[in-house]
């Protein structure tokens, strides 16, 4: 059974600081997704990582994928309050047709 684990589940940080969210998954997969969810809102796609060593950056967020270690990281640089949200990683099962397995999410709170 494919499992996806994120840590930490809760993260409180100050503006200007850096931090990394980790996403581990249990079986082989080549595709990893990061989504953002604001309270009461739906999910917004942030990154799609499709191969080992993939790195993508958007603003203060950078995501990477190591398929050998079955690990993805979401790095936050110089956090700002607007980044406060819940961040989910999700993985495809090999051979599946896109039904994603999600982690429990990391609730990020950035304080001034």
């Amino acid at each position, binding site marked *: 059974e494919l499992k996806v684990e994120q840590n930490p589940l809760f993260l409180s940080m100050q503006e200007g600081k850096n931090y990394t969210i980790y996403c581990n998954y249990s079986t082989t997969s080549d595709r990893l997704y990061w989504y953002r969810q604001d309270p009461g809102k*739906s999910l917004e796609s942030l990154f*799609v990582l499709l191969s080992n060593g993939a790195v993508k950056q958007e603003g203060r967020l950078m995501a990477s994928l190591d398929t050998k270690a079955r690990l993805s990281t979401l790095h936050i640089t110089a956090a700002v309050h607007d980044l406060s949200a819940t961040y989910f990683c999700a993985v495809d099962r090999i051979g599946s047709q896109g*039904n*994603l*397995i*999600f982690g429990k999410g990391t609730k990020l709170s950035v304080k001034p």
Partner: protein
Amino acid sequence: GAGVSQSPSNKVTEKGKDVELRCDPISGHTALYWYRQRLGQGLEFLIYFQGNSAPDKSGLPSDRFSAERTGESVSTLTIQRTQQEDSAVYLCASSITGGYTDTQYFGPGTRLTVL
């Protein structure tokens, strides 16, 4: 353009009643997915449609849950004889083809509360 829409946005029902949730995917998207998000949890996959066919129903939790899609467009998720453990946000997503690199675009969800 218009995104994925879902209705109703909120539904409160009594235990034992049937409910029907609707999803309108992005126009032209052939793949459609239903997920469930319990409070404080990640999303659980329920069912996937390619066109009007459902090749993967593996996530439906019981035979009380069913879904259909018509016209390669609108989908409805029906829960019969609702139970309190069915309370969750039900999210629908669509993608262009359901292919390997497709991004799934999510709707705002339907919050279901079973009293």
